[in-house]
């Protein structure tokens, strides 16, 4: 445990600057929002920057992981020489990213909350739905962010496994590593078999106050994405443990 917490703290220190810069950006957005607030009337436009900022969090983990891994690449032998499994080493980074992303999102949410209070009458009719929608967006943004983050890890690992084998054209291989699976996934997604396999555990979402049609959701699809994330992660750890070179 001490081993892991030391690892976690080290990884935190590698990216804390990025984390704090992120928080500063959040506060700048809040200032912008307040500025818009003063200069416009009572409406909901001022939430646009906040919503955009929240949406941008799908890039939070990929950016953070990229910076963290790039720092390790400066002295790759140091990171790779650690006798722990690549899974442990990477998990520390991913968890750091998740914690930071959650903190950042919570900050944005509380800003949004404090702004809503003064305008409550504008959305009172939609309140329950807004509230649930907001809550649902939170884990989905995290999930997408983790998915992109795992892709960054995989591409980084591939790069460091191939750099001495292919050299100059490694980027082409990486491009292929993105396009090919995406294309295959798109093919699979549209098959009936895929639908049969994933479209179970239906959980329809109804936002009757602002959406006519319900949003269909399936537990099976979440499981599918979860398996994809775990699979890509495992593939990366395998590459790092066996193929990456300094």
């Amino acid at each position, binding site marked *: 445990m*001490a*081993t892991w917490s*030391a*690892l976690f703290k*080290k990884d935190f*220190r*590698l990216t804390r600057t990025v984390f704090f810069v992120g928080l500063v950006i959040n506060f700048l957005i809040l200032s912008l929002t307040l500025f818009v607030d003063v200069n416009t009337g009572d409406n909901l436009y001022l939430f646009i920057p906040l919503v955009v900022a929240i949406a941008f969090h799908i890039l939070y983990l990929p950016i953070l992981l990229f910076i963290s891994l790039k720092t390790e690449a400066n*002295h*790759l*032998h*140091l990171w*790779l*020489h*650690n*006798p*722990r*499994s690549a899974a442990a080493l990477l998990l520390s980074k991913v968890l750091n990213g998740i914690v930071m992303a959650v903190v950042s999102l919570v900050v944005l949410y509380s800003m949004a909350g404090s702004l809503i209070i003064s305008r409550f009458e504008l959305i009172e009719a939609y309140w329950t739905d807004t509230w649930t929608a907001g809550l649902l967006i939170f884990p989905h943004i995290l999930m997408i962010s983790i998915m992109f983050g795992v892709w960054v890890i995989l591409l980084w690992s591939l790069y460091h496994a191939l750099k*001495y*084998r*292919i*050299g100059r054209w490694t980027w082409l291989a990486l491009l292929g590593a993105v396009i090919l699976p995406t294309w295959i996934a798109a093919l699979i997604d549209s098959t009936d078999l895929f639908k049969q396999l994933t479209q179970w555990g239906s959980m329809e979402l109804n936002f009757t106050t602002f959406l006519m049609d319900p949003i269909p959701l399936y537990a099976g699809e979440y499981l599918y994405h979860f398996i994809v994330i775990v699979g890509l992660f495992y593939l990366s750890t395998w590459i*790092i*443990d*066996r*193929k*990456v*070179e*300094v």
Partner: protein
Amino acid sequence: MRNVIEFTHVSKMYKKRSAIKNISLSLPLGKIIAIVGENGSGKSTLLKLIAGLSHPTSGSVTVNGEIANRRIGKLVSYLSDHDSFYPLFTIREALAFQASQFPDFNRAKAEEIMRYLQLEPDKRIRDLSIGNRGRLKIVLTLARDVPYILLDEPLSGLDPMVRQSIVKGMISYVDLESQTLVMTSHEITEIESILDSFIAIRDGSLIRMADVEELHESEGLGITEWMKKTYV
């Protein structure tokens, strides 16, 4: 399980350049061994292959019978010729981190080597001079109680006083009852007297592996003179 580092017909290609050509050798415990050769002859690659930080294109490298991949780090303490720490740490933090990650890290030994090499524990690594970085790397690497210690150019770029104290440190802190030290070095004259054997490579091929005393006895030559004779 044999306590030995074993190369079996190892070749390593980087793209189209061949860095190591069909090398077979075995390194036993309890020795101080130097890998010598010109720049770019494959000395560093040889160490990386043992540390599992590089993988043979063909052939195999095993350490105590295990295939050397990066997790062989549990048996091998590797010092790179590049910087080997997170610059945001202080010396003390770097030691604590090393100790947290390597169960075999001997804190008491580390403190002793640190005092011997006169490092100030509260200094930030990014503020250290080149000499002190070199010393710190030695502390971090030698303080591990592992069978194999690999040092890539431990003396290069350091002034004579520091080099001298590092060589003394190797005598004091490598336990030849249970450890083997393998290093690459340009400064052969300074380490020759502490070597058991040497491995000479040229253009990636093994040209000689012998005990230093054997070279003295059979040819009346030191490594430097032998290299001058052989490498022309």
